[in-house]
């Protein structure tokens, strides 16, 4: 199975690398802007502020949106899906190979951004010692970026499995991300009681632990668990949906 996964990942990266250079260029621009330029403007505050979390959790997950939309809808649109399904590759290897390729790429960008920004800031603000992220930022970014990449990928693969074209998949995914992203705010505004309870909890937690960082540390496991559940549910749905005869018969809807 691992060898089959590696084969699918190899193909995905070859196609990505040959995608008219757009993918590589996008990665370079991202790392240049968010992994060097913006951190340099922050100086040593970069390491303790919330920006690494924002940049390297959310943005890499959104960067794979185009690619994830292409995962199955692209194979269907370019008429390569049936031949792939007619090969000896097991269902799981095709599905998980594509998922892993996307998640690992997104996660690698996060790690690259964390490292490049740390290097750039250390060089620009060198004071005789090496500065690095506090552990809650580092672990928070690494774990959240992985699970957020998983969320985008799982949602995208689920949509892409059902879409006839890449464009249709991309549109549906954008809408899906918008719905998922805005869902907490909609829920909070629809239920004033929940909003008040959250505010109370934040207030108490801040008072108790003494800082917003402390609240983040306290809330992180809960957030990770929630993301893990959502990712797992979406991936289980994608796996249940991935069936050779269904993929052959459905031309996308």
């Amino acid at each position, binding site marked *: 199975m691992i060898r089959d996964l590696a084969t699918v990942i190899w*193909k995905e990266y070859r196609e990505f690398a040959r995608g008219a250079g757009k993918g590589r260029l996008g990665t370079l621009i991202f790392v240049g802007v968010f992994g060097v330029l913006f951190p340099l403007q922050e100086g040593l505050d970069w390491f303790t502020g919330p920006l690494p979390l924002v940049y390297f959790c959310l943005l890499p997950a959104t960067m794979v949106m185009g690619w994830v939309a292409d995962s199955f809808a692209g194979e269907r649109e*370019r*008429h*390569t899906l*049936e*031949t792939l399904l*007619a*090969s000896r590759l097991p269902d799981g290897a095709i599905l998980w190979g594509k998922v892993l390729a996307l998640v690992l790429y997104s996660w690698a960008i996060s790690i690259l951004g964390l490292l490049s920004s740390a290097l750039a800031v250390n060089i620009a603000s060198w004071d005789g010692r090496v500065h690095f992220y506090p552990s809650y930022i580092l672990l928070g970014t690494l774990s959240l970026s992985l699970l957020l990449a998983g969320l985008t990928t799982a949602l995208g693969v689920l949509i892409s499995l059902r879409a006839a074209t890449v464009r249709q998949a991309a549109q549906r995914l954008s809408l899906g991300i918008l719905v998922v992203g805005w869902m907490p705010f909609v829920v909070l505004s629809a239920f004033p009681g929940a909003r008040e309870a959250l505010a109370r909890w934040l207030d108490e937690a801040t008072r108790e632990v003494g800082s917003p960082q402390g609240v983040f540390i306290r809330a992180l496991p809960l957030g990770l668990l929630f993301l893990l559940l959502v990712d797992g549910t979406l991936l289980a749905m994608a796996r249940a949906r991935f069936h*050779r*005869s269904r993929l052959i018969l459905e031309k996308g809807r």
Partner: protein
Amino acid sequence: MTEIAIRTEGLGRSFGELRAVDGLTLEVPAGVIFGFLGPNGSGKTTTIRLLLGLLEPTAGQAWVLGHSVRQEAWAVRERAGALLEENGLYERLTAEENLEFYGRIYRLPKAERRARIRELLEHFGLWERRAEVVRTWSRGMRQKLALARALLHRPRILFLDEPTAGLDPVAAASLHEDLLSMVKGEGVTVFLTTHNLAEAEKLCALVGVIRQGRLLAVGTPEELQARGQGTEVQVVGSGFTSELLAALEARPEVLEVASSDGGNALRIRLQRGAPMAPLVAQMVQAGAAIEEVYKRRASLEETFLQLVEEKEG
């Protein structure tokens, strides 16, 4: 005993009310090119999908290389190569990368993979262009590459779904030659669907005719031609009056008489096995001058059309 590569028993697949494949019972011996003939929408592609385990049968059973397509579809796909309706090539990848991907899928060791890719690309005359992305290639070159991909892992059986559709005659002839030489060299069984009768006649040792999901006939092209209705006789000469034509048409063994070449030739369709000599004698007695008489066997195309029309009737 002849080894059987494909065996189906009452194989069927319905889509709602539509029976795309209906009670297909068939045996294809190993090592031959089997042509599966039928008009568009007759169930050829669905049959291939059933045999590859890409669709589940709604009736009957099929075995490919001894493996049930219901229970061991993975084993069938492991041993089969396929060139389906679409060539399935990754157009953003180079020719070599396309083969490399499928070589990895079939777990060919690195050295063997490299050697096999080179062997196939050289055989198909594509080695010099291996580093080009496939998007820029002609349809004929892509079909050759797709055929190379299907043969890459030395499959024991090859499914080809209308491999020359859309190719110009030169590219199609070239693909035929490549296919014949590869099949001869590698000894694979080929299940080839086509509605190109000339292609089937040239390539296939055995053919089956399918229409509306039902198998109408199976046999060698010669056997099928022999099953065709009647024999066509061409008579060249003069003095073929309308009275003579009417008299010939009145004979019980004559199915059809038609005059051509400005009245200097006749085309007579006789019942199978009927002698021609009495007709020649009658024509001479009626004053016709006969220069040439020759019998022509019905082509596979004519037989195919007859079979399809019979079914329609």
